């Protein structure tokens, strides 16, 4: 019996060309040179004492292994990104469950954070939290928080005085299912942020199947195929503090989906934000925005629903980014080990090409199970690199797969001329240790001009990966202030011209896994000291053009003003 991936039969055969062929095989690919990457985990020195609690039980409820996320949110508008950590909980009634809480840490601006959970009112005591989204739902300038749960979801309105108010019920977004990633975006460009929430599985403690063996010590986490999916939710913001559930009539409600990750962006340049959903072991969805409050699932025709072989993979996290600089947003999806992560290159006209192997993403991810992910320019050299947070879902995986472990190292993939190289081993000790990582939020929380990372880990402390890379480039950060458009400028398309380099990006909604990012746009400028042109196309249709902007600063851009305010 030979099953080396190819069936065996006896056949008549000739070998007419072998010598020629062997003589003309291509050589080995060039290994990447030295990397400037360096990240330091400053969680403990920054005063972060939060530790995730999964509620892991002998019953192995699947929710325990899917993790919780984190959000970067400047909740007090002092210019420094604060951090919100979502926590798990135990099964209701289990000892210790009521003491678990989410945590909000205020950034003191000096490298330290202060726990302000109690006074802010966002602790969500005893609730099993999963994903988080940040957006200014009422355009009052204060970012609000949406927290997805295994159970009713929660919307916290930022009151502007350091406290939040739970407005879930009156807003109508307290869907009771197992929510995962969520994201704010303006689906109809009416200036109010709408909300997309992925729902994962129809799981109940009472009817949870036993997987593995009956003996408690030999149970294992179930495959998602053991559960039915639950349709995602799409809420349209009415602008009066309430939301309208338009899931069914918009066409996004598909119970076949087992949603884990979501990201929104305008993939075809029609000025309307589309939605991509990473589903676990079922087809991923790409919902094209039709402009009339309905969406069409174009996952088949866009070739983003499956891998190139037509296999539905275990989609976890996802993000859009223009990694090849052609002005079109490409797509990353993290998957299960041996599946490899998917990199879908946008070819225009709503079609994508699964280029994971050619671009080096697949090779780096064969043995990894990826969750949080995102495109970001870690070294400000003007192209988008990739980060992937890894960790298996089975805590007993090493008992039957010797070469795959529950805790895994995270990865930094550097973009060199459009091809990704794994530079993790050069990126500091944090990339050499292994943890069971899940969520990842991207943002410059120390305001030093490069993107830092917050990574959440199952039953462990989070990591605050401060970017200490040797920067090869200058940078520019844009803080969007919508007037007619939504206050956060989500959906804005930005073109930056600096010297020879032209960069294109969008303020996307959602992205990564269970996490929310710095809403400021960050551009690495290579070595350019001046940006020749910034062109911003707001969701409202307003276009602002800014010229001759100095590099290395955060620029606040108000919609329609075309006169930036440096900060």
């Amino acid at each position, binding site marked *: *019996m*030979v*099953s*080396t*991936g*190819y*069936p*065996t*039969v*006896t*056949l*008549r*055969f*000739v*070998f*007419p*060309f*072998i010598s020629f*062929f*062997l003589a*003309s*095989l*291509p050589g*080995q*690919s060039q290994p990447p040179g030295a990397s400037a990457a360096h990240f330091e985990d400053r969680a403990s020195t920054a005063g972060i004492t939060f530790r995730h609690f999964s509620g892991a039980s002998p019953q192995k409820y699947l929710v325990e292994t899917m993790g919780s996320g984190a959000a970067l949110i400047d909740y007090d508008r002092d210019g420094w990104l604060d951090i919100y950590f979502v926590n798990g909980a135990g099964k209701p009634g289990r000892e210790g469950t009521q003491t678990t809480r989410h945590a909000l840490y205020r950034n003191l601006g000096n490298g330290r954070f202060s726990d302000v959970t109690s006074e802010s009112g966002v602790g969500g005591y005893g609730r099993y939290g999963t994903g988080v989204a940040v957006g200014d739902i009422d355009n009052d300038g204060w970012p609000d928080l949406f927290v997805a749960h295994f159970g009713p979801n929660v919307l916290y309105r930022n009151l502007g005085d350091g406290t939040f108010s739970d407005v879930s019920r009156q807003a109508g977004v307290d869907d009771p299912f197992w929510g995962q990633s969520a994201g704010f975006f303006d689906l109809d460009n009416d200036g109010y942020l709408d909300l997309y929430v992925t729902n994962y599985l129809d799981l109940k403690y009472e009817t949870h*199947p036993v*997987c*593995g063996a009956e003996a408690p010590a030999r149970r*294992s*986490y*179930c*495959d*998602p*195929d*053991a559960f039915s999916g639950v349709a995602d939710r799409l809420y349209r913001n009415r602008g009066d503090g309430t939301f309208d559930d338009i899931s069914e009539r918009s066409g996004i409600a598909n119970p076949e989906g087992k949603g884990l990750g979501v990201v929104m962006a305008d993939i075809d340049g029609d000025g309307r934000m589309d939605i991509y959903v990473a589903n676990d072991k079922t087809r991923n969805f790409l919902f094209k925005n039709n402009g009339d409050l309905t969406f069409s699932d174009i996952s*088949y*025709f866009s*070739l983003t629903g*499956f891998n*190139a*072989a*037509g*296999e539905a993979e275990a989609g976890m996290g996802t993000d859009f980014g223009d990694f090849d600089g052609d002005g079109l947003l490409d797509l990353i999806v993290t998957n299960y080990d*041996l599946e490899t992560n998917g990199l879908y290159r946008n070819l225009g006209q709503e*079609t994508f*090409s699964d280029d994971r*192997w*050619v671009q080096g993403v*697949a*090779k*780096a991810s*064969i*043995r990894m199970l990826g969750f949080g992910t995102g495109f970001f320019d870690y070294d400000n050299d003007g192209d988008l690199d990739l980060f992937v947070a890894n960790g298996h*879902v*089975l805590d007993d995986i090493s008992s*039957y*797969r*010797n*070469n*795959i472990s529950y805790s895994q190292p995270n990865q930094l993939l550097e973009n060199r001329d459009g091809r990704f190289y794994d530079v993790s081993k050069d990126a500091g000790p944090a990339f050499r240790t292994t943890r069971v990582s899940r969520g990842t939020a991207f943002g410059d929380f120390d305001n030093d001009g490069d993107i830092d990372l917050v990574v959440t880990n199952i039953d462990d402390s989070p990591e605050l990966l401060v970017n200490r890379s040797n920067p090869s480039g200058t940078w520019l950060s844009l803080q969007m202030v919508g007037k007619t458009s939504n206050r956060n400028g989500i959906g804005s398309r930005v073109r930056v011209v600096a010297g020879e380099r032209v960069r294109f990006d969008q303020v996307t909604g959602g992205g990564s896994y269970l996490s929310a990012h710095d809403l400021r746009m960050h551009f690495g400028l290579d070595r350019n000291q001046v940006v020749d042109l910034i062109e911003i196309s707001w969701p409202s249709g307003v276009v602002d053009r800014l010229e001759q902007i100095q590099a290395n600063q955060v620029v606040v851009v108000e919609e329609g003003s075309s006169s930036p305010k440096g900060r």
Partner: protein
Amino acid sequence: MAHALQGYALESLGRFSPAESAYGRAIELDESILLPRLRLGVLHGKQRRFGLCIALLEPVLQRIKQDPEALFYLGRSYLETGRSEDGIRIAGEIQANHAKDGRVLLSLASLLMSKGYWGRAENILRLPEVVQADSYSASHGLGVTLFQLGSSEEAVRALDRASALNPSSEKTRMALVIALLKMGERPRAEAILRSVLTLNPIHAHACFLLGQLLLEQGRHEESLKFLRKAAELAPEKPEYSFELVEAYHLKGDARAAVDHARQLVTRFPEHPRSYLSLATGLKLDGKFDRAKPLLEQSLKLATGFDSSANRDLWAQAAFHLASILRKEGSFRKAIELLNHVVTERPEPAALLELSQCHIQSGDPEKALPFLEQAMSLDGGNPEPRFVHATALLKLGRIEEAGKGFELFERLQKARRETKNRPVIRK
């Protein structure tokens, strides 16, 4: 005559060499005496000196027809030297002249079986005289013969009879296992293999077959135990070690598979499968740069021998190498390799790989015929249907692509419904 009698006496004592000398001297003195010629011919036949046997016995065929032993060795010598017609003629003479001698007929049947004359052997083994002479051997022989003739059920019945007559026979139990496996009766085959190993715990082939059987059922841990033992008991048999590597692969233990395959490269450096096994493990681990030269070596070795097994290994190595080349973006080289593979071996996996190369190199039109071939070979597989629809989409044939995706979805749904729900994701 004195020499002839001397030779006969020596032969009776088991002193064959001096007996042959005595018979030789007797023939030199008087060629017309039959006894020394007949006995010397038989001794040559026994010693596999088939040419000498024929030279002595052929001229006196008419005179030896009543001697079944001489006829047997003459017939065997004919068959062994490629004179099949003469051999079969002699077999007929034995059957005609010694129809009542069950033991002679049993020996003849055994000879015919060894040469692949299964139909003739079956006729003989069914004769009552044969069954009377040695019912166990007759049943065992009939079972093996029927299996070779494709009658597995009848073979099992005959082998069951044989096993009942001689419960301690490992050979019969092993033959029974083979027949049961052919019929898909795995539980019984497994039980018998375990009984063989109870009788003889160091039966290497029983360990090997049991390991294979368990591997097919996904019982990786148990399988590894027996395959490891088989490889230890018969380290000279590469197929046992190759199967062990395969078991490590299927268990998902790439590290052990690679470690073991590395040893095989040292132990069996001339065997193409050594390199293929190691390369497959490295490829699964994403170590393409290290897998490629091993696959090239496997290709070279498999090219050197014109056997079907090596052609099979060549195709596997070429397939894996092409798949790496495609992933690296070397589409032209991958297409060259796969064109040769699918010309001789048009199987869905190779056809799909070739199609993907054409699509990814920007030539979806060329992928279409290969995809159509793959779909015709494996109509229930959704994968070629999806890739076909992808190719049509890239060619702008939107409506056809849409229909293809619909069919893909239906096939996928059907597959999901027939598949058991996994309880643990591995």
